[in-house]
């Protein structure tokens, strides 16, 4: 045995050093690779999104900004004439733009506020222990799963002036028929109704998920203190949901600013004018009309960027409001 080791020893010793060196290097390499892996792999994993975002999000955004500084027509998109900020400055005097902005604001208000209020109440009800809760939770989401086109076309029929069901119901309780298409306020209410109908369930489910994360202890202690269901809702549920409510407000505001499909189709498929007096033409609709009906890509791009800037402005205001309210 000893003999053997003695024989083997030199060779082993001889091989040991390079092996150790190699092991060192390998270990070094391995640890370096480990560090690289730790540092760079996450970037690799998120890269696909950002590559796609760059190609299909950032590039169009920048290109739209570039086009907004030019006079360019859809009939010949390659022929661009530099006009500087003219497309933006003329929006200032554009009565149609201001009208669309005003409509977007009022329709946004008319749809977002009831939508979130109803969603909160609905979520509270869904949060009770009851039979078939899964059914109701799914049912509440079905309007969201319906396509805008299908839903809106049904609403167009419901809100019809001559043969609409809404007017029929109104007449049975003694009100005169309302011209939902032409009344400036009536048409905006009608469009808002479609939005509320579609999005309430969606928001309700978000609230419900957040409600279920609220610790049961809070309710228990509130109950011990003698708080009623309503008091629990106001003093426990709503404060705990504040970040969620803020989130849904942001999402709904973005949605309301970009409102497009409902008012487009509410016109009965008669174009992007938003009614004969532009009474329910939103910014999104005006952008579409400029770009794809009148074929002015430059002007449409300027409206798109104006919408983007308005959203940034709202986001800034919301942040400020949050900081103040805290």
């Amino acid at each position, binding site marked *: 045995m000893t003999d053997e080791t003695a024989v083997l020893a030199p060779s082993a010793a001889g091989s040991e050093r390079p092996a150790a060196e190699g092991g060192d290097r390998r270990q070094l390499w391995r640890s370096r690779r480990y560090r690289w892996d730790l540092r760079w792999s996450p970037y690799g994993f998120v890269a696909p999104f950002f590559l796609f975002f760059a190609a299909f999000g950032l590039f169009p955004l920048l290109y739209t900004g570039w086009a907004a500084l030019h*006079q360019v*027509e*859809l*009939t*010949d*998109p*390659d022929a661009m004439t530099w006009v500087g900020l003219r497309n933006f400055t003329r929006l200032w005097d*554009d*009565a*149609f733009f201001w009208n669309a902005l005003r409509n977007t604001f009022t329709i946004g208000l008319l749809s977002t506020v009831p939508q979130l209020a109803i969603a909160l109440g609905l979520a509270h009800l869904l949060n009770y222990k009851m039979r078939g809760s899964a059914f109701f939770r799914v049912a509440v989401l079905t309007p969201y799963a319906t*396509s*805008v*086109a*299908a839903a*809106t*076309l049904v609403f*167009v*029929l419901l809100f*019809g*002036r*001559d*043969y609409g069901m809404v007017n029929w119901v109104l007449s049975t309780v003694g009100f005169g028929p309302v*011209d939902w*298409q*032409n009344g400036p306020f009536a048409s905006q209410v009608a469009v808002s109704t479609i939005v509320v109908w579609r999005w309430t369930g969606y928001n309700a489910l978000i609230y419900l998920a957040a409600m279920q994360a609220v610790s049961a202890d809070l309710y228990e202690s509130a109950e011990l203190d003698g708080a009623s269901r309503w008091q629990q809702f106001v003093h426990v549920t709503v404060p705990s949901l504040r970040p969620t409510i803020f989130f849904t407000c942001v999402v709904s505001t973005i949605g309301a600013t970009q409102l497009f*499909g409902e008012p487009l*189709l509410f*016109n*009965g*498929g*008669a*174009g*992007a*004018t938003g009614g*004969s*007096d*532009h009474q329910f033409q939103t910014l999104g609709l005006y952008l579409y*009309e400029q*770009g*794809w*009906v*009148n*074929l*002015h890509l*430059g*002007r449409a791009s300027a409206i798109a960027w104006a919408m983007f800037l308005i959203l940034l402005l709202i986001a800034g205001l919301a942040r400020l409001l949050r900081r103040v309210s805290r």
Partner: protein
Amino acid sequence: MRARRRLVTAVGAMGATALLLAGCSQDPGEAPAQGGSTGGKAKTTLTVGVFGAFGLQEAGLYDEYMAQNPGVRIEQTSIERNENYYPQLLTHLGTGSGLADIQAVEVNNIAEVTATQADKLVDLAKAPGVDKGAYLPWKWAQGTAKNGATVALGTDIGPQGICYRKDLFAAAGLPTDRAAVGALWAGDWNKYLETGKAYKAKAGAGKAFVDSASGVMAAVTGSSAERFYDAQGKVAYKTNPAVRGAFDLAASFAVEGLSAKLQQFTPAWDQGFSNGNFATVSCPAWMLGYIQDKAGPAGKDKWDVAQAPKPSNWGGSFLVVPKAGKKAEEAAKLAAWLTAPAQQAKLFEKRGSFPSASAAYSLPAVSGAKHAYFGGAPIGEIFARAAEGVPVTVIGPKDLVIAQNLADIGMLQVDQKGRTPQEGWDAAVKAIDNALEQ
């Protein structure tokens, strides 16, 4: 091919199909059988891009061509509404990709296409089988660009009659025979208004004489040679007495309470047909099928069609062949065949789209055509007479935008919101100015 200002046939599918190309499916099992057994020469596939229910496929013309040319297979893609179809066509022409071998163009867009896209389209005057003499001269001229190349071949046109309800006319003590009805207003649109007043005096509440004031306006403007552009190609609708006259005349229908206050091609308008709450509608040839669809079996033998006060045209389409296509030569051959008089006559026979090739008018399919739904009216005769009287219209690149705003803003405000004609006109002018300003 039912070229109209707006194409709404299957309203239910509208929004969803806005961006979706509904490819036409071929008969199941057909392709494998042929490809497998013969193994012979490869088929050339030609694609045709259209809007709405264009009719070429529905009339069986593709099948006929494929039967005559076994080496060719035709596929059609359709977008429901021209408002969605046309901008997409422009972007595709701009990038030279995504185009079908043959594309349809609506008459209101044709001036813009010939003025701005002619260099991207094949000159079809030289395609085999194309005979300039077979076409109505004004239709041929519309498809011809400034450089002399005829880049678009006409399919159908929209000569107009007046469709009317016999039962409602009888109830109001008016004649019901189509010759006598035509005689009520022959030669003058004002007489149409007078008839309306006479109708209203007896028809009772809830029954209107026309569907919409804008429908009347479209018909009246369609009977003047110059409309929105002058002969020099400048926008002139504001000062053209023909346009203002048409606007004011149509507005009087609203002011006098003769209109059902509907907006054309909306669901409410469709319901108006099935409920029969208006007695007349100015109808281009392509609208007969629409009325038949919407009024349904209950309206059979109630509707009839009479001569319009003046010959007038509303709508019509063209076929173009983009140069970017790899099979442009084959496509040109197909486009020429599809628009030849014989095929146009078949299209009229099956679909009611009136031929733009005057050579087709003497063919029995046209000259002897009768429409069973409209009381067996001799529609070939009625519309051919109208077509031959249509003036050579000056059309401009922004005809569609101008016509649309005059109707959907100006006239609609008068009709539905009760504004004065002057207020409606001013609103339309403001919207058009904004739309034309680059």
